[in-house]
């Protein structure tokens, strides 16, 4: 060659100019690509921002949330050792809390509540928010109680009304709106009643078997090292069945709980974003395909591959960035709504500020994801030959296929890293990527199969319009795959969420049906058992369970005392076993929620040798024991040598009384014990009457009304599913935008066909029918496959995760399928209106 320069003199400025010129003329279509990712980014940014705000709020309000700098708690009266530590640290407040029944003489109602007996200056930080505000202090001196505000509303209680707690009756002197140490969910199940500590003993509620908790609250000097104190005394406290919590650790735990939920919502948002990206890839594919001729012309005129590639890459990147900006702004606005949505799950109001990190993430996501997903179609700009100007080139070069594989790998790697960043767990991230790939592959596979089947078994005998509509599904550059993906993923998400909620509710309600009890009486003392039975039976209600419970602790495991084990730093077993107070029962058979894993369930004891007991599999695992190993229990001062005779797998998820340690009959009958009695009340009225009578006669007995619990569970699930649906809505809306985008993009292709048909004499009505039928097929296929896939995944969830029968609801089939199909149909037809209403030549000229 001669000395021709091989560097183009047109610089980056020219590339930008060309990107702008070309983009300007393709404005409307490019805006649709952008719209595909806006909602996904808005969803991700809003959740990210809110999570960050929540985290910061929890951290900044940690002392207020706990009401102290640190606390020592125990499920029993502190031992001498613990009491010495507490005294040496100088507690500023003390609390005992437990669940109990409260009765309201005004209307005769009863309710399971959380009694909080408080003494001293608690809360040391923050305050009880009460009505009237003075009540937060007055209750200490005026011998009254503070009652949860919602509870007062539910039971139509007013200030001055009485509430009976155990043997004592108090006037209500204030309603509690919020209190440090209570969280929203627990107060829904058992709303708090706060009273002065000094009255607790006289209520007579602290009896054998009562599940109470003592908290001692402390304030630290400004530079006091709480973490060092924790490290120094926690092991001692652990050994004495007490615990140390700092305000930081409590806020971390709280943060973690919400973080898990936020992670899940983040994934839902990410799926919406991915869906949008599929839309981008599809729209860019068609867009670039139409540009190839222009690119060939540019190459013919002397533009290099790099220049032509960059023109379109810059266009897409610009749109991605713009989409990122709009999505981020939308997300920042949207997060303002989250505190309202999540209010009932949060122990405080979240102050929303604008966090920088999620905004940066939003912008980068917009830019990076649109470029990444557009790369595949953009590759063709690199490989298009200038010869395209003279004649259409049929075969794409091999290099493009190799490059496409790299791009696809890049996309998978990106999804993995993003999922990993969200979940902070590589296994979950892999599972997510595999799940996404599987769902997309199945949908894509079914779409391909569908097209192949139509082609192979084309119904030639069908009428003109029906045949033409089927032909459209597999014509060159068809949008069948993308539309089925977009519709399918959206339908799959929504119906999976719906089915999962169904499983959870079914699981809860199933347990309450038929012969299963719906009222459980806790803390029935041995001397009260017969009298309680005498109240229940005359009402015609069955005594379904009468379960004795004996509390005990582990004394030694396989001959090694728990005291020695506590000191053994090399011990790998789970140490909670060493300090736990076990609630044990005795019986001669296994129950429905149990399955024998190994050994033999012994139903009696011959009073020779060690007592054969049965352990649940989790206890056996945590204590590192197998069949035949010996365990010695301390049953309220008496040591009992036992041997592991059987190990059971227990379904703890069932609303049923399950036990980790079961003794045979003939051993514990004379030990101090209390009872749990269950019955089933046919209606709410009978249940309320029974509760009233029981609470009046036996104030220490707590009654759990499963019917109420199920209503509560349903309420909580409804709220959670509302939030999930809210997020899934982004996927659906993105799906719609992708759908509109795909339909609009394909419009430019099919417009010529439709116009040609009209020119050849096809009536508007016929073209309308062809279009309607095509979108009808797509709508039914996409939503149908999506719902069927969700049915399979819900079945798997029911089987593998919830271990619960699954009866699919008709709603996804009856409402979702026709709803989505009609929507697809309307979008498709709306798009073709301009073709139908204008003369052929005008349409051709307009569309250029």
């Amino acid at each position: 060659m001669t000395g021709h320069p091989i560097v183009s003199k047109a610089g980056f400025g020219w590339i930008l100019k060309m990107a702008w010129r070309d983009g300007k003329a393709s404005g409307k279509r490019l805006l649709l690509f952008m719209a595909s990712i806006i909602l996904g980014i808005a969803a991700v940014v809003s959740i990210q921002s809110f999570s960050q705000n929540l985290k910061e709020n929890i951290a900044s309000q940690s002392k207020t949330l706990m009401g102290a700098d640190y606390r020592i708690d125990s499920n029993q009266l502190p031992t001498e050792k613990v009491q010495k530590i507490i005294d040496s640290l100088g507690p500023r407040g003390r609390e005992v809390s437990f669940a109990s029944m409260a009765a309201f003489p005004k209307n005769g109602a009863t309710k399971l509540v959380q009694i909080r007996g408080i003494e001293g200056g608690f809360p040391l930080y923050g305050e009880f928010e009460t009505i009237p505000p003075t009540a937060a202090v007055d209750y200490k001196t005026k011998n009254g109680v503070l009652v949860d505000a919602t509870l007062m509303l539910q039971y139509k209680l007013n200030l001055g009304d009485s509430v009976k707690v155990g043997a004592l009756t108090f006037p209500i002197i204030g309603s509690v709106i919020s209190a440090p140490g209570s969280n929203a969910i627990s107060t829904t199940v058992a709303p708090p009643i706060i009273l002065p500590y000094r009255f607790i003993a006289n209520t007579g509620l602290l009896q054998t078997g009562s599940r109470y908790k003592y908290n001692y609250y402390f304030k630290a000097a400004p530079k006091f090292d709480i973490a060092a104190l924790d490290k120094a005394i926690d092991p001692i406290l652990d050994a004495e069945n007490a615990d140390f919590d700092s305000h930081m650790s409590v806020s971390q735990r709280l943060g973690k709980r919400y973080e898990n939920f936020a992670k899940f919502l983040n994934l839902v948002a990410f799926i919406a974003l991915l869906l949008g990206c599929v839309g981008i890839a599809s729209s860019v594919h068609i867009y670039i395909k139409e540009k190839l001729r222009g690119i060939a012309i540019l190459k013919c005129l002397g533009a290099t591959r790099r220049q032509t590639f960059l023109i379109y890459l810059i266009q897409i990147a610009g749109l991605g960035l713009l989409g990122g900006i709009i999505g981020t702004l939308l997300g920042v606005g949207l997060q303002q709504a989250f505190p309202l949505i999540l209010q009932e799950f949060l122990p405080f109001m979240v102050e929303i500020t604008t966090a920088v990190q999620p905004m940066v993430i939003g912008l980068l996501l917009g830019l990076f994801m649109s470029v990444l997903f557009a790369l595949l179609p953009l590759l063709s700009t690199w490989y298009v030959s200038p010869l395209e100007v003279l004649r259409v080139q049929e075969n794409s070069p091999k290099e493009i296929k190799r490059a496409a594989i790299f791009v696809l790998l890049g996309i998978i790697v990106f999804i993995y890293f993003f999922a990993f960043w969200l979940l902070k767990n590589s296994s979950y991230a892999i599972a997510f990527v595999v799940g996404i790939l599987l769902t997309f592959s199945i949908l894509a596979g079914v779409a391909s199969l569908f097209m192949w089947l139509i082609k192979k078994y084309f119904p030639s005998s069908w009428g003109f319009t029906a045949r033409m509509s089927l032909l459209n599904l597999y014509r060159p550059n068809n949008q069948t795959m993308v539309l089925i993906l977009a519709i399918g993923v959206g339908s799959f998400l929504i119906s999976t969420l719906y089915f999962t909620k169904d499983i959870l509710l079914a699981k809860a309600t199933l347990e309450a049906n038929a012969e299963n009890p719906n009222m459980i009486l806790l803390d029935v003392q041995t001397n009260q058992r017969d009298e309680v039975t005498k109240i229940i039976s005359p009402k015609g209600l069955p005594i379904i369970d009468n379960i004795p419970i004996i509390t005990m602790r582990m004394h030694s495991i396989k001959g090694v005392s728990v005291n020695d084990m506590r000191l053994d730093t090399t011990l790998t077993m789970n140490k909670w076993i060493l300090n736990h107070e076990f609630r044990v029962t005795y019986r001669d058979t296994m129950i429905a929620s149990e399955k024998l894993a190994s050994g033999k369930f012994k139903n009696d004891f011959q009073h020779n040798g060690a007592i054969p007991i049965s352990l649940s599999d989790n206890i056996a695992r945590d204590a590192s024991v197998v069949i035949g190993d010996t365990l010695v229990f301390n049953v309220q001062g008496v040591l009992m040598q036992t041997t592991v005779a059987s190990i059971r797998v227990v379904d703890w998820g069932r609303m049923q009384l399950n036990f980790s340690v079961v003794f045979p009959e003939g051993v514990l009958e004379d030990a101090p014990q209390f009872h749990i009695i269950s019955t089933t009340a046919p209606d709410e009225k009978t249940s309320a009457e029974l509760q009233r009578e029981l609470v009046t006669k036996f104030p220490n007995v707590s009654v759990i009304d499963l019917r109420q619990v199920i209503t509560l569970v349903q309420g909580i699930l409804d709220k959670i599913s509302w939030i999930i649906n809210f997020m899934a809505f982004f996927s659906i809306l993105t799906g719609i935008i992708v759908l509109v985008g795909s339909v609009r993009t394909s419009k430019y292709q099919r417009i010529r066909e439709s116009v040609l048909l009209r020119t050849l004499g096809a009536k508007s009505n016929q073209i309308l029918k062809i279009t309607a039928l095509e979108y009808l097929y797509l709508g039914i296929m996409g939503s149908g496959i999506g719902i069927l896939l969700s049915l399979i995944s819900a079945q798997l969830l029911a089987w593998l995760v919830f271990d619960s029968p699954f009866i699919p609801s008709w709603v996804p089939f009856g409402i979702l399928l026709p709803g989505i199909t009609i929507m697809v149909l309307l979008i498709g037809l709306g798009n073709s209106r301009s073709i139908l209403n204008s003369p052929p030549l005008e349409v051709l000229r307009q569309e250029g």
Partner: protein
Amino acid sequence: MTKILNVRNLGKSYISGSKRLTVLDDITFDVEAGASFSIVGPSGSGKTTLLGLCAGLDKSDTGSVSLCGTVLDSLNEDERALLRNKNIGFVFQDFQLLPTLTALENVSVPLELQGNKDAAQIAKELLQKVGLGERTHHYPSQLSGGEQQRVALARAFSNKPALLFADEPTGNLDEETGEKVIQLLFDLNKEAGTTLVIVTHDLDLAKRTQHILHLKGGKILTNETTTAS
């Protein structure tokens, strides 16, 4: 005179199904700088393929093409693109204007690629010269076929090419418009002193060039010199 285009033993074939289809076979000819040259032949004779190879739009299987002293076979695609930008102008049967660019922008592109800062001004003058001074900001879809081809002519001459390839330049135009466009092509060519290579099946048009290369079945039938000046 200097040879601006040397074609030696050029051959090109395609695989069609399981068969090899020879489109061009042992083509050899030269084009002198400043001359007008036409390639004629029936459909399928290999005219367009030959033009593609001569302009560096495609690579030959055998033989070589030397354009403005540069052997094309040794250049990669980007080097050929830059060579085209510097030395070649194109006029196509179906105009091949960029649909998203206005007439002015279409004409400016080759100049902008050369880094010419006066691209817009030169393009405007060229559009005036082809009679489209008032339609500079119109998009191709807003112009008639004849107008589009005149924009294409302005674009082809914008980078002052040494060699201009025209592929059936009147193929998509009616007779009257076609004649006007051809007249304009020859006028501009004369004014710029450009070498002109026209691919056509129109013998009357071919006779207006100084040389006619007849192709049939991918082979040269004749290579004659006309009396045209």
